[in-house]
């Protein structure tokens, strides 16, 4: 039982991390059709910002700095590099690929290739006893952060004018401009939100893994992509569910099958989902027949 609880919360914690990364990716893609390969670099940037400040300043400040770093970097990338290329969608992806290569390499150049230990504050370093399991506190922090972000994103999308613009832009960007709205402001905003969440993911990921390294963001990005494809582009709820599912399946497979198989399981689910989607009609018919 205690193993089950620990695995579940660890899986959900990992899923929370995936959600923070995937929700930004999914929003950016949904609105702008930009597949952001630099997203992993934003995660890394956030992680290093948090690592630099931890120990010198309160941890909350370190987290805030990570968020700010991610948001500022993302807004800069959008306005300077992505914006001039809106008529060349493929080149936008290529530019993010270039950044995704260069930024982690730059981090490596400055702080070295080796992982740096991130000393989490005492409140996060301990464990909490729950149903007989001793669960590391940071799992709860991650899950709570993801829930807060999910709620905030939903509120933003449903209650604010910018959220309305974003939802409309996901459907038809050109028509939004034809209503007299400067959709580019929404682009920058969405990119910055994605960057902020990536920065947060970097900082919390540093706590979760206990260290930061230059390619940490990029390896998390892959699972971010898996989650986005499974959950559906531009669908926040779907992404949240998929993130939780992927995190849980990874942890459980790693524990009960073999270490390392969990990552495979995540990719295998992706394949199954894709095949099922390819044969959606067939699957629906099956379900109807079974019901």
């Amino acid at each position, binding site marked *: 039982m205690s193993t089950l609880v620990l695995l579940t919360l660890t899986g959900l914690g990992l899923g929370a991390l995936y959600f923070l990364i995937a929700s930004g990716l999914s929003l950016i*893609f949904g609105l702008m*059709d930009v*597949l952001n390969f630099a997203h992993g670099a934003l995660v890394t940037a956030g992680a290093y910002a948090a690592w630099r400040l931890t120990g010198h300043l309160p941890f909350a400040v370190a987290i805030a700095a990570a968020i700010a770093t991610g948001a500022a970097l993302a807004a800069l990338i959008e306005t300077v*590099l992505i914006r*001039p*290329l*809106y*008529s*060349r*969608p*493929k*080149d936008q*992806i*290529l*530019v993010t*690929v*270039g*950044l*995704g*290569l*260069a*930024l*982690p*390499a*730059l981090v*490596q*150049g*400055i702080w070295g290739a080796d992982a740096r230990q991130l000393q989490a504050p005492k409140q996060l370093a301990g464990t909490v006893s729950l149903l007989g399991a001793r669960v590391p506190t940071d799992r709860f922090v991650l899950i709570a952060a993801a829930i807060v972000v999910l709620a905030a994103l939903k509120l933003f999308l449903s209650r604010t004018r910018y959220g309305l613009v974003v939802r409309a832009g996901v459907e*038809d*960007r*050109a*028509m939004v*401009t*034809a209503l007299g709205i400067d*959709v*580019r402001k929404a682009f920058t905003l969405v990119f910055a939100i994605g960057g902020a969440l990536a920065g947060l993911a970097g900082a919390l990921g540093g706590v979760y893994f206990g260290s930061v390294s230059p390619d940490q963001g*990029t390896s998390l990005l*892959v699972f971010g*992509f*898996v989650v*986005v*494809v499974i959950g559906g*582009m531009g669908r926040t709820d779907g992404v949240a569910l998929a993130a939780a599912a992927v995190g849980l399946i990874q942890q459980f497979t790693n524990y009960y099958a073999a*270490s*390392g198989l969990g*990552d*495979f399981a*995540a*990719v295998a689910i*992706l*394949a199954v*989902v*894709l*095949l099922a*989607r*390819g044969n*959606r009609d067939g699957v629906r018919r099956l379900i109807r027949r079974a019901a």
Partner: protein
Amino acid sequence: MKRHVKNLIPVAVLAVLLSLPYSTLRIPGVFDGAVNTPGSLQLLALCLLFAGLAIGYDLLFGRLGLMSFGHALYVALGAYSAELAMKNLHLPLVLAALLATAIGAAVSTLLGAVSLKGVGKLGTENLGTVGFAMVTLAFAQAGSILVGRDPKTTGGEEGLPLSTEKVPAAFVGVVNTVNLYWLALAYLVLVCAVVWWLTDSRVGRAWQAIRDNERRAEVLGLNPFRYQLGAFVLAGTLGAVGGVVHLLVTAGATPETTTTDFTLALLVMVVLGGSGTRWGPVLGGVLYTLLDHRLGAVATSDSVAGLPAVLRVPLSQPLVLLGVLFVLVVYAVPGGLAALPSRLRGRRPPTRPGLRGRGPRGQRGEQHRLGVVEGEAHGAHPDRVASEL
């Protein structure tokens, strides 16, 4: 006349490449020793190998418009399965290479079908490209994880040294580096022959039709899935063969071949040189490999060590420079280096009959360079245009 010249270029290039191992020329800054020294030939072999791999990758990226982020998987499959076949099954090199090629073909068929099938149904067309990119990335990542997590079989981070006892003596040892050069050249010629021949054939025209507008191609009676899968399998198989060559040239299977960065390097080569062109990937592959090695040397040189940190740090990381160069090329030279001469020559748009006054300029490249309102992506959607016409 012009045609003759065009046909002569490959012959001339091949003649130069064939003569290089006999050349004692010194090119300071590019090669440490003379061209025919083992060190230079090794680097040249890598250049030719990557040129071949880049052509294979461009088959997907440039010819069919498929952005694969998992091409490394097939190169790694070729290298690792050939080495494992020699080491564990005790097969001689030729059989191991054939087995590796067959595995590459089989896996690319399977995963290509899954990636392409799922992608078509993900939603809008744009999502198709992106979904494919993500899915291929995920599969390749799985391969990378497999190699990393099973050190007993794959050697983990160390990789696997070449089982030299199964390899003909001609490919072993520093004195035989020239044979590795010939091998890499043979690989490049093979890839060029297959890809160029197909591109000029009926299949190539179908590829182009599908790349330009998948739906229109479908209306014309082409089955995009079949052509895309065919190209994917061909690229995967050629990649696996390249993996075997990589195994021999670098005397081992290295985990670097499994990483996303390996695929991204191929992407950078193709875009740098010019995607969808004959010579672009070759140029990009050679240039990238040379830069990657020379920049590495620059990074550790004394002149860089003496620079202030602002300059030293980026210069010490080849990937920073390559990434920045890549972004610059995407911005400043859309179409890559191969398109540079025609861009410089073709600045002025051709005058067209029926175009008068201050009509729009006809050049596609020109259009791209000017800022375009966001709406165009929507307004100029191929299908919309078709229905508007």
